[in-house]
């Protein structure tokens, strides 16, 4: 599907999400959006700007502050012929939609024995760096990745933001699209055309032979920066952007590990019981024979996201910590 935005000189993450919604709505009248302030106001972060004017108040609906019902209604709507895309304003508020997503959306196709499916998308931004504090910064994607029946993607750049969202909307199953508040302003040179990106496929964003760094979301940039820093010391890191967390691209990680024999995993979420745990565990099993050093994870420490800038910057995974992790596994 050709992108309207093909003539843009640059592409911002926020605009890419907006474009994906726009293109999906233009292509398929069953795509509808609803959420708090997504309509008249165009979204708290401005992601849905212009869509209500373009597609009308029936297809782009402002809801009251009723997250549980927003998500549950998406399940019912998806079972009844719509493709709802809902916005949960901050990922921290997904605490209020767990029943709808986990007990209903994730299970309907399976527990109804294959009858129907739930083609809904839940978009929500995670991540810190804005001083938003403990209830407006959390990265909770590991919860959803643990739930059979859900799919989870986490775009690290504008092109993925477009492509993964298009794929998510096209998908017959419920997909959580985890955006990142701090990335909304990120811009890249716009590609010729924007296309859907298959769910479940990672992308090697930098080739390298000495160590594999697996990352997703905002941590991809941290990993790339660390790789640059390491390169100046002669260490060539391969950086993999996972893009999808459930399913995740086990084959790509294993292939990279088979070339480098060292593995570092980076994400913004809390390290303990986070997404990196699964990747490490899997590689410590199926990739064990390839490993020449410990698998080192770099994630947030085991504490709530603190408010103060000083605390929050120490809290977030840094280039220094990634470099140190690589050095440790190379020792």
């Amino acid at each position: 599907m050709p992108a309207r935005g093909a003539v843009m000189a640059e592409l911002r993450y926020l605009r890419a999400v907006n474009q994906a919604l726009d293109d999906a709505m233009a292509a398929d009248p069953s795509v509808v959006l609803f959420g708090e302030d997504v309509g008249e106001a165009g979204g708290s972060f401005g992601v849905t700007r212009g869509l209500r004017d373009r597609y009308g108040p029936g297809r782009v609906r402002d809801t009251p502050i009723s997250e549980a019902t927003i998500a549950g209604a998406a399940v019912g709507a998806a079972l009844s012929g719509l493709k709802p895309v809902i916005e949960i304003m901050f990922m921290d508020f997904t605490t209020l939609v767990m029943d709808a997503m986990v007990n209903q959306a994730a299970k309907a196709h399976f527990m109804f024995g294959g009858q129907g499916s739930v083609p809904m998308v839940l978009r929500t931004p995670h991540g810190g760096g804005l001083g938003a504090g403990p209830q407006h910064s959390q990265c909770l994607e590991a919860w959803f990745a643990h739930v059979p029946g859900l799919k989870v993607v986490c775009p690290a750049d504008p092109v993925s933001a477009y492509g993964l969202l298009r794929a998510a909307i096209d998908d017959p199953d419920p997909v959580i699209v985890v955006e990142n508040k701090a990335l909304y302003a990120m811009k890249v040179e716009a590609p010729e055309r924007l296309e859907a990106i298959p769910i479940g496929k990672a992308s090697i964003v930098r080739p390298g032979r000495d160590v594999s760094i697996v990352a997703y979301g905002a941590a991809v940039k941290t990993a790339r920066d660390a790789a640059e820093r390491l390169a100046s010391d002669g260490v060539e890191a391969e950086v993999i952007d996972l893009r999808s967390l459930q399913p995740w691209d086990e084959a790509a990680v294993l292939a990279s590990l088979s070339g480098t024999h060292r593995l570092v995993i980076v994400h913004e979420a809390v390290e303990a019981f986070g997404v990196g745990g699964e990747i490490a565990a899997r590689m410590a099993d199926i990739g064990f024979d390839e490993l020449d050093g410990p698998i080192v994870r770099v994630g947030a420490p085991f504490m709530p996201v603190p408010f103060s800038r000083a605390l929050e910057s120490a809290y977030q995974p840094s280039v220094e910590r990634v470099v140190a992790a690589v050095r440790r596994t190379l020792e």
Partner: protein
Amino acid sequence: MEGVATVTTRPSGELNVSGAPDAAGLLDLYGQMVLIRRCEERLGALFADGEVPGFIHLSIGQEAVSVGVMSALRRDDTIASTHRGHGHAIAKGLPLEGFFLELLARDEGLCRGRGGSMHVADTSVGMLGANGIVGAGLPIALGSALAHQQLGRDAVAVAFFGDGALAEGVVHECFNLARLWNLPLLFVCENNGWSEFLPSSKQIAFKLGELSAAFGLPHVAVDGNDVAAVAAAAADVVGKVRAGGPAVLECVTARMRGHFEGDAQKYRNPDEIARLAERDPVGIAARQLLKTGIDEAELTEVAETVERRVEAAVAAARGGRDPDFEAAKAGVYARAGGGHG
């Protein structure tokens, strides 16, 4: 309160409700109630014998709600049900064999043995699932109503829930949103007086009629053990919902069995249990039919037909296969891909 009506029907036993079904119609409703009753009695026995795994909540005593409400619905109307959903499922037209096959956890079951009693569904007749989570059906029905509205279908959605569910916040969220968006959504409360082992009066501090009024939702209360009354009220209110937006139908009924099968009901006053037979909706409808001139033989025939259908379904269910594990594992997603871990 603008747009709010409260209708209470006469005490049960008299067939005098305006818009009520005629004798032939009532006989049909009666037959459906007998069918549900017999299915559930049979399930109770199969459960006691260990043929039905898990746990089951029977709707015995509440058949008039399922049958009465569903008599006002079309096939393309959708419903979301509860943990006590057998009656809704059967009344909405689920194939009986597929139903029993499911309850006996067979591969040929409606849900291929993955769901069981609390998850029976048949999307082809608009039955969007029983539900193991109290209150969770309401947003699903609301979303279905939204789809009807948005896609320009003149179908309605119906959310069934119990009186105990009124304590779940999501119910109130749905009342609000249904009103705001003027959705073709009927809320049907099966008020059986109990929430598990406690009278719901100890859990719910308000009257549904007053709550509905506060939300600007028309509220109709009906004797939920009088199928003719339920059918008449449902016909009326479903028509209004189809034309003009959400409403609440409160069916005052009685749970004749325990909360689940195996519940000894020690918490329940023996007098109350003893008096339940008087309110038995099947008995009430039978008495109404006899008064219209239908004779005992016809009722017996209904019972015999039902018996044959149910036994055939049970036999078929017993003959079903166990589901295959690898196939089940492959059926988590409509479109799989990648390694899910």
